[in-house]
């Protein structure tokens, strides 16, 4: 495993992520104090409503699901060196694609067929949405970060157009949303909870991605491309193909978040199906250093923040934006610590070979090649 054997660097990375989260909590706590609230009460409240009992945990996992999909999507692109900040838009594209099937198919369609068609259609739409920055990147070397970011806003507008226009629920024109999906379009749930199959799909994708990246030739090449695309080109890897494929897969995985949200949670398409899951996913991916397994756990943690914040609105009368502020603070600390962490990791790496450095073995070629031979050939 390429990523895991470099253990000291991994430790430094973990410390950096944990430290960023703690610092974020600390700074936001300071603001809460200034606002006259007791941060300890509020944080323990968040914790209790996120992990306090079985129901809380299941709600946390529900909130973690789209975040996990999105973070994995960011990681797929990130490992080949692409910055896909458009997962939010790809999520929405996925939701739109799934909704199209749910509305178009007859209500009597068997559930397995309905769901697989919704899933496929969603993934195709997500991949299509991410194909735009991918093709522009490979073809014209346009910065994929900016294109994918801007497409987020386009996706929101397309969704708004659909639910205000052609797809609006004809029976209730006062709400910008589609009509409720038929029963066969609802993703499998755990009994007596909102926890749905999507969560497990996300975990499986995470594990599969981890294996792909660490163990297979495809993953190996992806890692090399991510670390240095020039070196990959020089080793005759098909770099452009990898970049496009990674971006398409990234879009498709993000789309799964949209699919599972409309199918399992909302039961219809409406605006605001994603309170920024894509951006939270981006944060999670960075906190987890693009490591799929770490993403699974970090998503659950951030899912806890999200679901805890829901309760915060009720019990503490704090706006939901508190969590956004918290996320922002964590991200700032993470970015700020990046360069110093790198230095720290390098220092630790340098200390590794301490036994050997003072006296490297003298290489002695068996048959020395002449160095001073200006006259040898003349």
């Amino acid at each position, binding site marked *: 495993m*390429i990523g895991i*054997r*470099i253990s000291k*660097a991994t430790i430094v990375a973990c410390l950096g992520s944990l430290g960023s989260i703690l610092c974020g909590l600390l700074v936001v706590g300071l603001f809460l104090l200034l606002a006259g609230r007791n941060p300890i009460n509020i944080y323990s409240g968040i914790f209790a409503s996120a992990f306090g009992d079985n129901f809380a945990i299941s709600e946390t996992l529900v909130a973690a699901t789209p975040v996990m999909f999105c973070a994995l999507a960011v990681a797929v692109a990130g490992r080949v060196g692409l910055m896909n900040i458009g997962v939010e838009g790809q999520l929405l594209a996925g939701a739109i694609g799934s909704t199209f099937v749910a509305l178009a198919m007859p209500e009597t369609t068997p559930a397995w067929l309905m769901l697989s068609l919704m899933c496929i259609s969603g993934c195709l739409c997500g991949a299509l949405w991410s194909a735009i920055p991918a093709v522009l990147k490979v073809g014209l070397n346009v910065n994929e970060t900016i294109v994918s970011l801007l497409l987020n806003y386009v996706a929101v507008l397309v969704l708004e157009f659909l639910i205000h226009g052609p797809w609006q629920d004809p029976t209730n024109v006062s709400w910008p949303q589609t009509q409720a999906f038929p029963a066969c379009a609802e993703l499998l749930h755990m009994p007596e909870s909102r926890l749905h199959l999507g969560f497990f799909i996300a975990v499986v994708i995470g594990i599969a991605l981890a294996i792909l990246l660490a*163990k*297979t*030739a*495809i*993953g*190996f*090449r992806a*890692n*090399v491309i*991510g*670390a*240095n695309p*020039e*070196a*990959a*080109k*020089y*080793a*005759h*890897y098909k770099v452009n193909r990898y970049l496009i494929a990674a971006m398409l897969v990234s879009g498709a995985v993000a789309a799964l978040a949209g699919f599972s949200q409309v199918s399992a949670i909302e039961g219809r398409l409406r605006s605001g199906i994603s309170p920024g899951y894509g951006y939270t996913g981006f944060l999670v991916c960075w906190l987890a250093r693009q490591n799929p397994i770490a993403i699974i756990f970090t998503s659950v943690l951030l899912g806890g923040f999200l679901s805890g914040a829901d309760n915060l609105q009720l019990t503490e009368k704090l706006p939901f934006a508190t969590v956004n502020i918290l996320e922002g603070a964590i991200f700032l600390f993470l970015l700020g610590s990046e360069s110093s962490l790198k230095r720290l990791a*390098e220092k630790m*790496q*340098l*200390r*590794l*070979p*301490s036994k*050997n*450095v*003072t006296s*490297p*073995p*003298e*290489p*002695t*070629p*068996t*048959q*020395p*090649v*002449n*160095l*001073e*031979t*200006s006259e*040898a*050939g*003349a």
Partner: protein
Amino acid sequence: MPPTRSQLKKHAALDGSHLSDRASTTVEKQKRVLSFNSVCKQFGPVIANDNVSFEIESGSIHAIVGENGAGKSTLSKILSGYYRPDKGAIYLNGTEVVLNSPTQARQLGIGMVHQQLALVPSLTGFENVLLGDPGLPFAFHKKEIEKKVMLRARELGFDFDLSSPVSNLGIAERQKLEIFKLLWRDTQILILDEPTSQLTPFEAEEVLTIAENLAAAGRIVILITHHINEVMKFAKRVTVLRKGKCIKTVDTAKFNSDDLAKLMVDSNAFIPTAVPQGLSGASLFRLENVCTKATAKHKALSNINLEVCAGEVVGVAGISGSGQAELGMLIAGLLELSSGIIFGAANERSRSLKDLACYVPGEQKLAYAPGLSVAANSFIRSVNRPGAHTLGFVKSSLMRQQAQQIIESFVITPSLCDVAANALSGGNLQRLIIGRELSTSAKIVVADNPCAGLDAAMSMRIRHELRQAASAGRGVVLISPDLEELIATCDRIVVMFNGSINGVQQADQFNYQSLAMFMGGKPELSLINGSKA
């Protein structure tokens, strides 16, 4: 202190015309002496400088030589204020100088030209010279200052174009620009770190002549280099460092180059032997009238005719940027040809030689993946081999085994598979890359300046490996700006000029002078002696 106008005038008077007539300026110049007194510097367990004491006088170039890791860079970094010595002190004319920061060093008139040039390619020469000039006022009249810069450059005898972006300048001109940048800031102690490693013999001579003249005008010029011949030719005194210790400071006039080399490596590796002559076997590839198109990054190649056979090492010489790198990339299958024919093994026409060739690029950063482990980096090429994976899963034991082999046979320290590749030093990394490429089964080996930045012993080892590869039936194409390296290693040398092959020499007729002529474009004598005077 930034140079004031009056100071500039003073210098103009001192330096004026010295480039053409050195003798007139050396008169009545007060000698300056820079001395290192028991300087020690340790990084963790590594002793970089161990009680280094010696003196440097103005008036002539003082060279510091030594293998990789001998402590040259540390010493120069102490002098330019980047590091503080653990013990010991530096004296200028008997008074101790305190160097706590690069800024302080700069104020004392100490400046360094780094091996990796610190110029901004998109800015003009003027802008690069003025960039970070502490004497520049907040608001200034650009044209006026540029005129001053221009005048000063002409006074000092620099003839490069200051108004075009640095990216348009050749490497030698950039080197000169770096030197001029220091002179503009009134630098009196110049440290040149490997100034000629990227240059051809002509260019090197030009740059070193400038350095020699600057020294003659009363500056202290310190030359850090691997090239023993340069030292013998341009430096008056030379200090040999080995493993952090100052071995000896000698007059080059009273010493010969073999002894100097021996002092550097402390082994008998320098016993000269005859060049092993490779026996040419079957043709591995042949290029016939091959042309490539120019791109933003690459020069066009025109009408290349070249055949390389099994068992031979073919050298490619040329002034930097004459198309050598492109020729290497073409053979490695990284450039598309626009016309001409490529014949692969057994004289069969083929579109590209990429499956037959392995390639060590001229720029190290193009050849490795920084965040990944040494093991992964040693496997970058092998992963494409069908036997490298089962059902798409990489055989990690094979990967580690191969990495271990490369680590052992190329003496890579630290000898660990799992360290990130970027934790290795430049020399170790270069060996890893060369080891990886040679461990492929490719019949054609293309190595673009593989010994850049390696010390003498390791360079010899690499050349030996290349010869060995040829003896084992491979065909080696060695691209190098270093004619001596080519002469010592190759069976045949082709010389590139302006994108095409301008001359060929066989081993039995190798002649430094005529090779240098080919490099200059035309076999005219004026080009060899062509100092810019």
